[in-house]
C-alpha cells in the first residue's frame, strides 16, 4: 500500500506539474493576469475550480469524520452551506460588475475603495491571513493523517504535510490563478471520480445499498436523527452552520473568484455547475462516514475514519490508492487557492498602500505566500483535534467581515469607521472566545462574533460620516449593470 500510494502521488505530482507549466503559456504581465487569470475564466473551468477550492480534505476526511461522530447532522450542516450559495446569486454579479468597472483584484481592495479608506481593506487582509492560516493548516493535517494512516506510519504525518505544502506552492507559483484553475480542474475530477468509486465499493462490501441502509437504521439508528449521539445539539448546529452559510462571500479565496469569470453567463455556469458537484460530493462524503461507522465502530478519533477505512480491506487496494490521491488533491487544491488569495491581499491591500509606486508588488505577494505556507505547516504540526471544528472556527473569524461586505452594496450609510470597528472588535472578540473555548450563555462564538459585527457596523456607521458620494460612484455602474443583465 505504501509503495503504491507513493508511486501514485509521484504520478499525480508530475501530471499536475505538466498542467501547471502548460498554464504558464499565454500568461500576461501584471496583477490582474496573475491573480485573476486576466478575468477571462470560462464557466465550466470556473465551476470545477470553485469546487476544488471549496471542497478539501474537509469533505472525505472531516465531513466523513463528523458523520462518524455525530450522524446525519453532518448532512444538514453541509447542505445548508450549499443553500448559502444563494448569496452568490445576489453578490456574484455585484462583485463582478464592480470589478469590471473599477478593476479590483481583491475583495478587500473593493471595500477600501467603497468606504474610501485604505485601512478597511488592510484590516480585511490581516483578518484573512490570521483566520485562513488555521484553515490551510487543517488541509495539511488532512493530508498528514491520511498518508500516515494508510501507510501505518511509514509515511510520517510531517512528511505528509510537507508534500501537500510543496505541491500547493509549486502550482500557485507556476502561473498564479491560471495554473490553479487548470490543476484544480484536474484535481476535482480525480477527487470526485475516486470518491464515487470508493463509496460504491464500501457500500457493496456492506451488502449493497438496501442492506447498508437497513443495518445502519438497525444498529446506528441514533445517528439518523438530530441531536443524534450528542454532537449536534441545536446550538452547536447553528454555531457550525452560520459561518459556513456565509462562506461564499466571507472567504476571499472563493469570493475573489467572483471577479474572474469572463462574463455573467460564465458566472451562472460556475454557480450551477458547482451546486450539482457539491450536492453529489456531499452525499458521497456522508455515506462514506456512515459506512465507516459500520465497518470500524470503535475508532478513538473520528478523523481517522477515512484512513482506517482505506486500509481496512473493504476496498480494493488500487481504489484505495487512487482515493488517497483524490483526497490529497482536494486538500492541495484548497491550499493553493488560499495561498494565492492571501498573496494578492498582502500585495494589493497591505504592501501597495505603503509603497504607492507599486514596485515589487508581486514579489511582496510571493514572499507572503511562502510565509503563510511556513506558518500553516507549523500550525498543522500542533495536530489539534477535529478537522471540521477547526475549519469552521476559521470561517467564524471571517464572518466578521460580512456586514461590511453586505453594507458595501446595500447600505449607503455604511462608513469606514463602522467597517473597521466591526471587523477589528468582533474579530478580536470571536478569536478570544474560540481560543478560550468560551460560549457565553451557551451561545457559540461564531454567533456572538456575527451579531457583534452587525451591531458595531450599524451603530458606528450611524454616528460617523459615511462616504455617500463614493457610495453613489460605486453603486451607479453596479445598478446599471444589474438592469442590463436582467439580474433580479
Amino acid at each position, binding site marked *: 500500500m505504501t509503495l503504491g500510494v507513493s508511486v501514485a502521488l509521484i504520478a499525480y505530482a508530475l501530471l499536475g506539474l505538466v498542467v501547471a507549466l502548460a498554464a504558464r503559456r499565454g500568461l500576461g504581465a501584471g496583477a490582474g493576469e496573475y491573480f485573476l487569470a486576466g478575468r477571462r475564466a470560462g464557466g465550466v473551468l470556473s465551476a470545477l475550480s470553485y469546487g476544488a477550492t471549496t471542497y478539501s480534505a474537509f469533505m472525505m476526511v472531516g465531513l466523513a469524520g463528523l458523520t462518524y461522530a455525530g450522524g*446525519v*447532522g453532518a*448532512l*444538514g450542516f453541509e*447542505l*445548508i452551506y*450549499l*443553500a448559502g*450559495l*444563494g448569496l452568490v*446569486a*445576489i453578490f456574484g*454579479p455585484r462583485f463582478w460588475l464592480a470589478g469590471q468597472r473599477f478593476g479590483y483584484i481583491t475583495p478587500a481592495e473593493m471595500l477600501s475603495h467603497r468606504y474610501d479608506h485604505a485601512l478597511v481593506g488592510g484590516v480585511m487582509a490581516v483578518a484573512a491571513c490570521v483566520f485562513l492560516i488555521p484553515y490551510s493548516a487543517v488541509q495539511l493535517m488532512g493530508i498528514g493523517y491520511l498518508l500516515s494512516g494508510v501507510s501505518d506510519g511509514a509515511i510520517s504525518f510531517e512528511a505528509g504535510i510537507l508534500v501537500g505544502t510543496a505541491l500547493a506552492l509549486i502550482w500557485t507559483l507556476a502561473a498564479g490563478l491560471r495554473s490553479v484553475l487548470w490543476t484544480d480542474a484536474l484535481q476535482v475530477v480525480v477527487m470526485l471520480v475516486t470518491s464515487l468509486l470508493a463509496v460504491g465499493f464500501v457500500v457493496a462490501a456492506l451488502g449493497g445499498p438496501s442492506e447498508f*441502509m437497513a443495518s*445502519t*437504521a438497525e444498529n446506528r*439508528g*441514533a445517528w*439518523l*436523527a*438530530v*441531536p443524534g449521539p450528542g454532537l449536534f445539539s*441545536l446550538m452547536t*448546529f*447553528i454555531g457550525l*452552520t452560520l459561518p459556513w*452559510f456565509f462562506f461564499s462571500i466571507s472567504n476571499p479565496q472563493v469570493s475573489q473568484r467572483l471577479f474572474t469569470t469572463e*462574463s*455573467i*453567463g*460564465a458566472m*451562472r455556469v460556475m*454557480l*450551477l455547475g458547482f*451546486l*450539482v458537484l457539491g*450536492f453529489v460530493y*456531499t*452525499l458521497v462524503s456522508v455515506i462514506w462516514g456512515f459506512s465507516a461507522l459500520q465497518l470500524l465502530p470503535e475508532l478513538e478519533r473520528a478523523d481517522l475514519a477515512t484512513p482506517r477505512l482505506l486500509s481496512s480491506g473493504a476496498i480494493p487496494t488500487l481504489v484505495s490508492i487512487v482515493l488517497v490521491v483524490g483526497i490529497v488533491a482536494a486538500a492541495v487544491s484548497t491550499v493553493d487557492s488560499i495561498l494565492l488569495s492571501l498573496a494578492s491581499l498582502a500585495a494589493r491591500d497591505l504592501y501597495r498602500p505603503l509603497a504607492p509606486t507599486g514596485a515589487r508588488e508581486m514579489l511582496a505577494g510571493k514572499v507572503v505566500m511562502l510565509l503563510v505556507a511556513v506558518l500553516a505547516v507549523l500550525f498543522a504540526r500542533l495536530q489539534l483535534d477535529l478537522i471540521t471544528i477547526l475549519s469552521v472556527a476559521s470561517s467564524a473569524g471571517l464572518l466578521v467581515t460580512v456586514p461590511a461586505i453586505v453594507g458595501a452594496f446595500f447600505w449607503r450609510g455604511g462608513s469606514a469607521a463602522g467597517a473597521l470597528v466591526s471587523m477589528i472588535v468582533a474579530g478580536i472578540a470571536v478569536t478570544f472566545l474560540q481560543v478560550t473555548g468560551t460560549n457565553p450563555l451557551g451561545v457559540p462564538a461564531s454567533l456572538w462574533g456575527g451579531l457583534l459585527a452587525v451591531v458595531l457596523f450599524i451603530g458606528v456607521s450611524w454616528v460617523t460620516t459615511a462616504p455617500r458620494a463614493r457610495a453613489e460612484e460605486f453603486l451607479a455602474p453596479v445598478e446599471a449593470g444589474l438592469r*442590463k*443583465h*436582467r*439580474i*433580479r
Partner: protein
Amino acid sequence: MSDDRRRGTGTLALLGLVILLAYIVPYGFLQAVESWYGAFLFWMLFGVVAIGLIFHLVGSWRS
C-alpha cells in the same frame, strides 16, 4: 418594482424560508425519527429544493 425584480425577491424569500425549515423541521419534528426517512430524507429534499430555487434565481440572467 419591475416584474423581474419582484419575482427575484419572491424566490429569495422562499429560499430564506426553506433554509429556516432546514433547522426547524429536523430539530422540531423529526428528532425522534431514527430512520433514513426522517432528517436524512428531509435534508436531501431541502438540498434539491434550495438548488432548484437558486437555478430559478439565476435563470433569467442575460449574459
